[in-house]
């Protein structure tokens, strides 16, 4: 497919093979120099982006380097310590529990949001009015700044004055401590995350469902498949690559979740919502230790890339399976 994007297909040669070289040569030369000019123009067009790329790579590399030193904000000359920061982290119960919590968070997000998003997508795809209205509503949380989403829910989750406990009370359920208790805080953030990002997943899956050729579904109906069977054997396999795509985005975004946590709990109460990205931020700016902050964030980076890479492979396989 690559070649189809090329602008200039090789022009048919004017002279047949083996014709006198003095006829062919000047044309070839001018064609080649035109080609070279175009090549140079393309490089120039790419240059600013490449400079930017370098501008991003430099701090990145410096960050990795910092993680190999004992840099503290209040020490003038940090020295190289090798992997000592990483070794320290692997012995640090606070880091290990934050790592575990982060993975638990990601797993919960997937477990809650993938099935729910599939359900919502199927629900919306059922009628054209439903999908028209639904799409318009679902888009809204995606455009609200995550910090606003967080604060909005924090307001509603106030234990003594929040509207959620009031509504729970109306149907006879006890008040929940929501964000204020170590046992419920992380799950409350999962709920906020679901409000903020379920629409993202659902909209992509809806687009997937709507790209399913209607003949295929009709054929399965004619064959006598019920709604559930048609979903299981037709829609779901068709959706597989879309589901993996959604998973890639959700895994990366929830591994590095910060915006929904910082304004809402700052990682607390105690450590109950302190995910790795939050811990890295605090390490750098509250505890003045860029070295261990960068070590934490580089580990997070490796996690994001490792898992995304595996999911990307899975994605390619599901695409090939669908054809």
């Amino acid at each position, binding site marked *: 497919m690559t070649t189809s994007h090329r602008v200039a297909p090789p022009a048919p040669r004017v002279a047949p093979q083996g014709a006198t070289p003095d006829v062919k040569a000047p044309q070839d030369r001018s064609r080649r120099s035109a080609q070279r000019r175009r090549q140079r*123009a393309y490089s120039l067009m790419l240059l600013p982006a490449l400079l930017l790329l370098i501008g991003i790579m430099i701090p990145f590399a410096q960050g990795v380097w910092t993680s190999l030193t004992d840099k503290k904000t209040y020490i003038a000359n940090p020295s190289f310590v090798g992997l000592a920061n990483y070794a320290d982290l692997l012995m640090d119960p606070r880091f290990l529990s934050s790592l575990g919590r982060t993975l638990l968070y990601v797993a919960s997000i997937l477990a809650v949001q993938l099935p729910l998003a599939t359900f919502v997508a199927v629900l919306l795809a059922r009628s054209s009015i439903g999908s028209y209205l639904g799409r318009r509503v*679902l888009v*809204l949380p995606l455009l609200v*700044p*995550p910090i606003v989403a967080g604060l909005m829910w924090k307001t509603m989750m106030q234990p003594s004055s929040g509207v959620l406990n009031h509504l729970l009370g109306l149907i006879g359920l006890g008040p929940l401590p929501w964000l204020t208790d170590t046992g419920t805080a992380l799950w409350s953030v999962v709920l906020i995350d679901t409000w903020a990002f379920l629409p993202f997943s659902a909209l*992509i899956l809806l687009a997937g469902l709507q790209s399913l050729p209607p003949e295929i579904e009709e054929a399965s109906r004619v064959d006598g498949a019920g709604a559930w069977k048609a979903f299981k054997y037709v829609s779901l396999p068709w959706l597989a690559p879309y589901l993996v795509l959604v998973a890639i985005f959700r895994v990366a975004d929830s591994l590095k979740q910060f915006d929904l946590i910082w304004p809402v709990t700052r990682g607390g109460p105690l450590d109950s919502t302190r995910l790795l990205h939050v811990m*890295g931020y605090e390490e750098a700016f509250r505890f003045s230790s860029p070295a261990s902050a960068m070590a934490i*964030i580089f580990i997070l980076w490796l996690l994001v890339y490792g898992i995304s890479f595996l999911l990307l492979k899975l994605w390619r396989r599901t695409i090939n399976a669908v054809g």
Partner: protein
Amino acid sequence: MSRTIPKIGFLAAYVAVITFIMFPLVWIVMMSFKGYDDVIAFPPTFLFAPTLENYSSVLLGDTGSMSSGAGEFVRYLGNSMLISGGAVALSLLVGVPAAYALIRNRTKNEDSISFTFLSFRFAPELMVIIPLYGIYQRVRLYDSYLGLILAHQLITVPLVIWIVRTFLADVPVEIEEAAQLDGCGPLRTLMRVVVPVIRPGVASAAILAFIFSWNNLLMGLVLSGQGTQPVTVGILQAIGFDQVRWGWMAAAAVISALPGMVAALYMQRHLVQGLTMGVGK
């Protein structure tokens, strides 16, 4: 008869989903129009006498005791406008030609550049922002608009490159060849022939990039100081030492969510594509 029960079930589920999404938005908008007594009332009030005092306190500054300076928040709005507007403008300037060069002059090398840009969408931002904080302090870009605009390229350029890329793939090569026969080089072909065709794509890339930049918290939290604080950081001021100013926060939240809401009305069609960076179109 047997069909009505599942239908009612579906309708109920549909209403539940819409309510789940809409309720918090409606609630925060309601709260932004509540006076102090209604904000702290429990049980919460659903009917109340609306007031504009929160908005006036956000936009014009406080007259009460907890003064935060006249119209501080307006300054944050201006900062966000400048930073996100500047970031998007620079991204279009850099990203559109790059996307074109990357897709028309495509080799293995070019593809790995494209994917490196894509990968920034997934990276934890602090990996770049924390070192940038140190660098910026040395080169005096800390707390400057230019510094923030440059940093925001981490978010906006990948978006622009990848969204424009999906639109470029649909441009018929014939129209470009015609321009080339007229003697146009790649840059002129892009500006005169291609950009007019993919204008909707460029527009939606610009809008999405603006929203993502506007909504970003970490860049402002780390790289801006008193002079350049964006709205996302400004809202955090509602959470004071001893108490949260809920009404103020609600009004500030509503105002800062407006650009996204306006954009939503406007770009339905390309939004889903844009959110996945055009991957899996």
